[in-house]
C-alpha cells in the first residue's frame, strides 16, 4: 500500500497541478500493470512507466480516446484482464465522433476506463447520453486523489473482469472548499499524517 501511494504521489508531483485530468491520470497510472496502457497525447503509455519518465506533457495536446479503443481491442485479443485508460478533456468530448467511440466501446464491451473532464455541454447532449448505453457513469472530485482512488479502482476492476467500459467524470470541486493546495500537496498531507511517508521522503 505504501509503495502504491508513494508511486501515485510521485506521478502527481510530476504532472502540472492546474490540469483538471492530471490527478485522475496519475491515480489511474499508479493502478496499472505492465500490460495495461494509457492513451496520452503522444501515444500509448505502458502501466509500468517510472514517475521520472512520465512526460509532463502527458495530456497537453489533443487527447486521443480512439487510440485507447484500438489498444483495448488489441489487448482484448492478446490477453485477458488488461485495461486501457482513455483521458478525454471537455474539448475532445464535444467532438462529433466521441459519441460513436463511446458506443463502440459499449457494444464491444472493451476494457476501457474513460477519464473525462466534466462538461455541462456533454451532459446536456442527448446524442452523447444515448451513446453511453450501458456504460456506467461515475462522478468524482478531480482535485482529490484520495477520492478519485476508489472510483478509478472500481472502473479498472470492472474492465479487468470483462464487464466493459466505465466513464468517470472528473468534476472540479469548489476552490473554496478544497483550499489552495494542489492535489499532490493534499496527498502528501495524508501520507504524512497517516504515517505512510515522512516529509523528507516526499521532497
Amino acid at each position: 500500500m505504501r509503495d502504491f501511494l508513494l508511486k501515485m504521489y510521485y506521478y502527481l508531483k510530476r504532472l502540472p497541478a492546474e490540469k483538471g485530468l492530471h490527478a485522475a491520470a496519475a491515480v489511474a497510472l499508479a493502478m496499472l500493470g505492465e500490460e495495461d496502457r494509457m492513451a496520452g497525447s503522444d501515444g500509448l503509455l505502458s502501466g509500468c512507466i517510472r514517475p521520472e519518465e512520465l512526460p509532463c506533457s502527458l495530456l497537453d495536446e489533443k487527447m486521443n480516446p480512439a487510440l485507447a479503443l484500438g489498444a483495448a481491442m488489441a489487448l482484448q485479443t492478446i490477453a485477458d484482464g488488461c485495461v486501457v485508460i482513455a483521458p478525454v478533456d471537455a474539448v475532445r468530448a464535444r467532438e462529433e465522433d466521441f459519441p460513436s467511440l463511446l458506443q463502440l466501446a459499449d457494444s464491444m464491451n472493451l476494457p476501457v476506463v474513460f477519464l473525462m473532464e466534466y462538461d455541462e455541454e456533454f451532459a446536456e447532449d442527448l446524442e452523447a447520453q444515448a451513446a453511453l448505453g450501458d456504460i456506467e457513469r461515475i462522478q468524482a472530485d478531480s482535485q482529490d486523489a484520495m477520492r478519485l482512488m476508489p472510483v478509478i479502482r472500481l472502473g479498472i476492476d470492472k474492465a479487468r473482469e470483462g464487464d466493459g467500459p466505465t466513464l468517470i467524470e472528473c468534476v472540479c470541486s469548489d476552490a473554496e472548499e478544497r483550499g489552495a493546495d494542489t492535489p499532490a500537496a493534499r496527498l502528501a498531507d495524508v501520507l504524512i499524517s497517516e504515517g505512510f511517508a515522512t516529509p523528507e521522503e516526499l521532497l
Partner: protein
Amino acid sequence: MSLKTYLEAIEYVLDSELNEQTGLIVFRPGARRALEESERDVALPRMGKAVFQIALGAALTGMRPVIDLRQEENCAELLLDAMCELPARVPPMTVIAGAKDAELLMEIPGLLPVYPKTPRQAAGFTRAALRQNQMTLLIADQALYEEEDEVPEDDDFIMLPLTGAEDEEADEDVPEEVADCEADGTDALREEEAAELTSDGSEEDILPIDGEDEPGEEVNPDMPPEEEAAEMTCAEPDDISLPEYGENAPSEDAAGAMVPEDAAALPDSDACARAEKPTDHLVCDVDAAGIQAEEIPADEQNEAGCAEAQPIAPVKKVFCASRMIPCDLTELNRLADELEMNVYDLAARCMSHAAKRTAAFTWIFEADAEEGECAFLPPEDKEVSVWLGCDRLTACYDPAEIAGTEAARLLRAVLRVLEKPALLIFDKEDDPV
C-alpha cells in the same frame, strides 16, 4: 490452384493470414458485419479518420492492423486527412481501399501502393501487403471483383509488386507487365534522384536516403553525367506514355550536371538488378501503375464508374503541401471560405501562379524559417522550385517546361529525404488561372 474471383482472392488471403498471423486484426468501418467470425475481424460503424487512430492504437500494442475502407465513399479524402494526423513513422499496417481516385491514392507519401489487376495478383499482392514491414495501401478495384482466375492456394504465395523482388515460386508466373512494374524504376530512380539531389549544389542540406550512403557517393567521377544517369535509369513499359521531357534540350542544373532526356530513361534491367533493393518505395511506379491525369470519358468507364486500364499520361501539375501544422490548413481554409472557393482549387491556383514565375528546377531547403514564415525564394531561371519552411513544404513547376511525372518523382525524392508526411495533389484541369 483454384478458380477464384478477384474479390474472393482478397478475402481468401485475408482469411488465411488471419489464421496464420495471430497479431493481425482487421477493421472494417461501414461493414454491416465482419466476414469472418473472429474477434480479430471487427466490423465498425463509419467513424471517419478515427478508425486510423484505432488502428494505430492496435499497432502500438503489438498488433498488425488492416483497415478495410472499401465501404467508405470518400476513401481518398479520408486517407489523406488521416495520414496527416498519423505520426511520421507509422507501425506496419495495411489499408484496403477502392479504386476510386486511385491516382490520388497512389500518391500519398508514406503509403506503399499496391494495385492488383488480376485475381492472381490480388492474392499475391494482398499477402505481400499483409507481410510488408511498412504501411501499405492495397487498391482493390471494384470493377474487377467478378473477374476469375486460377489462384494458388499456397500460404506462401506472394508477389511483391514494388520491391523488385518476387516470390521464387511465383517468379515464372508473373505477367510481363507486372515484372516490368516490379523491376521498374524504383531503385534506379532513387539512384538518379540521389545523383540529381547531390548535383544541385545543396548537398549539405540533403540527408542520406534510408540510411544509405550519401547520395553523392553513387556518382562515378570517371563517367560523364549523362551516361551515368542513363546507366542508373530504368525504362518504363512500352505501353506507357513517356514524360514530355524529351522535347526540351538537356538542361543543366545548378551544379552544371546534365539532366537526362527521355532517352536516358530507357530500361537497363541489369542496372535495376544491380541496384540495392530499397526498403522505402514511395517512388515505385507512378508510370507503371495506372495513374491517369486526364478526366476519364464516360464511354471508357465501366458499370461501376471506374476506369478501365489505360495507358499512363503524365500529370500536368503537381503541388504538395505539408499539413503537419494545422495553422497552415486553417489559414488556407479561411482564405478559401472568404473567396468562396474549394480549398484545393485555391491551393492549385496559388501554385500555378507561382509556377509561372519559375523555370528550371532547384531545391531550396529553409528548415530554419520561423513558424508561419513563407520561405519562398522564387528562382529566376529554374523549372521547379521547392521551398520548405519549418511549417510547410511546397513545390511548384511549370508544366510547359517539365513533365508532371518527372516533377512528381523529384518531389517524392524530397519528401523521402525529409521523412515528413505530406500530400501530393494532382490537378487534372488545365491552368485555372
